[in-house]
């Protein structure tokens, strides 16, 4: 039974996920029962009363009150039960406890940015401690998005000009997938994030030091991680193909022409400027659509992405 549940619904990340799955599986078996009933009656009647002779008259069975009441009232009772079950779970999961960690989330085309209570800011990676309720407070900078954590069985639309919240209490350490579930344009399907559920100690340490791999990794590899995790890849290719933004391939040292006619040879400072203040100069042939990453990259991360671009000859 549990293997069927796991195959259909994937991993669980919280006690609430299990509550949802119990109702889901109840509905699966209920559906299997009623579907089997429909198939059985359909096939049985169709076959048993198949036409053996043309032109026969058939009995006039107009209706049967007892039978009709049966198949009206029984479904009504069942669905009312399901309503209360589903609604009860939903309300319980909507209310954040007072000790919940509040983390602000901003969705924009096509990345997720996070801001922690101590001011730490990240893109693409959300870290939370295990077994503590988390309250995400979400908004959007452009169009509708939807923050969806399948393993927590939770999602909410993220709406520009409004704050919504999403509560969950992770109980399973490790990486969990986050999707954008509200269609938002070209790179909608790449607008993902990682939810890392850490031990309380690891979480505190991470808040101070940042991603541990950044401490020991060569800058080029740090840059590759930044490229993949912070959303660069949704607009900048590494194979020279044209996307929303210029490709990183062969970018370093290239002569770039801007919309105002001026030019620059790409160097460390131009890359830093493009990340922190992307609207300052726009490369000719592209739209001014890149959001600022000011304050969102730690110094090793900035060094890393520059080293990574240098490598892409």
């Amino acid at each position: 039974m549990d293997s069927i549940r796991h195959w259909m619904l994937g991993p669980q990340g919280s006690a609430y996920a299990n509550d949802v799955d119990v109702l889901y599986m109840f509905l699966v078996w209920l559906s299997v029962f009623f579907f089997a009933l429909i198939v059985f009656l359909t096939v049985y009647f169709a076959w048993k009363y198949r036409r053996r002779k043309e032109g026969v008259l058939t009995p006039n069975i107009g209706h049967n009150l007892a039978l009709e009441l049966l198949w009206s009232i029984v479904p009504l009772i069942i669905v009312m039960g399901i309503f209360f079950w589903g609604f009860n779970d939903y309300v319980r999961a909507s209310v954040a406890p007072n000790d919940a960690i509040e983390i602000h989330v901003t969705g924009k085309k096509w990345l997720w940015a996070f801001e922690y209570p101590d001011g730490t800011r990240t893109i693409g990676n959300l870290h939370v401690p295990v077994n503590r309720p988390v309250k995400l407070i979400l908004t959007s900078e452009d169009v509708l998005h939807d923050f969806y954590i399948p393993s927590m069985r939770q999602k909410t639309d993220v709406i520009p000009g409004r704050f919504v919240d999403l509560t969950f209490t992770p109980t399973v350490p490790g990486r969990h997938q986050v999707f954008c579930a509200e269609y938002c344009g070209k790179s909608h399907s790449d607008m993902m994030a990682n939810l890392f559920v850490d031990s309380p100690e690891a979480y505190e340490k991470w808040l101070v030091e940042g991603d541990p791999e950044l401490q020991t990794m060569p800058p080029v590899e740090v840059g590759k991680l930044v490229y993949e995790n912070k959303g660069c890849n949704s607009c900048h290719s590494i194979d020279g193909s044209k996307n929303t933004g210029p490709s990183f391939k062969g970018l370093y040292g290239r002569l770039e022409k801007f919309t105002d006619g001026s030019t620059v040879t790409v160097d460390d400072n131009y890359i830093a400027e493009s990340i922190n203040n992307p609207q300052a100069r726009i490369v000719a042939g592209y739209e001014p659509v890149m959001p600022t990453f000011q304050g969102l990259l730690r110094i090793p991360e900035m060094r890393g992405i520059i080293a990574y671009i240098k490598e892409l000859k």
Partner: protein
Amino acid sequence: MADIITTPHISGHADHHDVDYLHDGKGLKSWLTTVDHKRIGIMYLWSILFMFFLGGVFAMMIRLELLTPKQTIMSAETYNKVFTLHGAIMVFLFIIPSVPAALANFVLPLMLGAKDVAFPKLNLFSWYIYMAGALIAIAAMVTGGVDTGWTFYTPYSTTTDGSVALMTFAAFVLGFSSILTGVNFVATIHKLRAPGMGWFDMPLFCWGIYATALIQVLATPVLAITLLLLIMERTFGIGIFDPKLGGDPVLFQHFFWFYSHPAVYIMILPGMAIISEIIPTFSQKTIFGYRAIAFSSVAIALVSFIVWGHHMFTSGQSQLASAIFSFITFFVAVPSAIKTFNWIVTMYKGSVAFNAPMLYALSFLLLFGIGGLTGIFLGAVSVDIHLHDTYFVVAHFHYVMMGSTVIAFLGGLHYWWPKMFGRMYNESAAKVACALVFIGFNATFLPQFVLGSRGMPRRYYNYLPEFQFLHQASTVGSWILGLGFLIMAGYLFASLRKKMDAPANPWHSRTLEWQTASPPITHNFHEVPSVGGGPYDYYRPVGQGRNA
């Protein structure tokens, strides 16, 4: 109980020298200026079948692209346009007009024993409006396309590039065609029933179309206003929906679903109406629970207006609103269950024949069963939060829209084809095609329930490798489905090249459209039919109605 049915008297038989409606006037002009409901129905039929083909090509492209993660045959921008066009074409240009404007236009007046609909010129006008809407939609496709999804959610739709304003204008225009058809049918059913035909002597098809027409007339204007506001916002920058202009993006969703949820029943009720005809005919049996089926159509129509918020459980609407909408939504389950059991029990002690229309009706019972039961998952708020905007929803609504409505439409098409064109199609080929469509459909959409439950969001161009197997199963299913449709197109076209060979009443039905020739004469009946019994009196010999 074993009396042999005597051959019914066929009015419009060969001893009168009237031409059938297909040969009454030659040339394109005689078609384009006709006010005959049968000819208008046929013009609608070819128009919507062309749109079904176009939407189907887009569907095959979607499935082909999803064969692999990342790029298979097209870019992300193209993919987004393709799924938008698939949805918009199938909903606005095919499914909504399919049964009412094409099939019901043809058979409704015949079933009522009427000469035509109440407003024949308005009927032709609504076809022209449909064609205008279709041309505007095609213009929008070739002048930049649309990448908003068929739901046009703001503020994406007010800020993205492309011909969004033109496409929404097309939907706006098509809405009027829908409204006028609805008005026409309401008036026809009220005023043009044959003498002696009370409301409860009408075939149940008419009840289903009546309930549909009410929704078309009452709900479509809301869509018109919503789309007009969207066009104004895009064109003139008035701030209704975009928060940057002081608007509210969620307001659009309320407006949109206030129409589009009832529109789901504009699509399914006519499908149910067809099933209510096919099953008694091919079972040669009185329909079980006539009044329950008739009233549950009207009940579904009424409830459909107050459940729109179940599309918005994750939209940020209040928890109280979600509770109320969830609660009301579950009431739709009851009339649906009533109808399903009524149809099944109709076969009890009947004389069931397995011609192609009946095979579609039996397919409908199973597929609507799955579509309805999976709707219960989505009505339960906590489960819906997980499944919303995933492939589970995609699979669910395809089971209802395609597995139920389109399958019923195909059943109706095969049922009335001899009446419409006076020709029988190849029955064996039809059975093979029906089997392929049934298998292909399930192979395409069953895997999507699991995809969605595992968290695969919809409208995704790229996806995680772990989802690939189920996507590939779904794509292979779409090829089987496509093959079924190819065979169907083959034998239906082939039948049109034959001599007319269809008898007036090939299925031995008791409803009035079968009491005139196939194809019918221009004025439908030589004399106004006198109705002496119910439409499903299979328990007494033909011609021995209660007044006969």
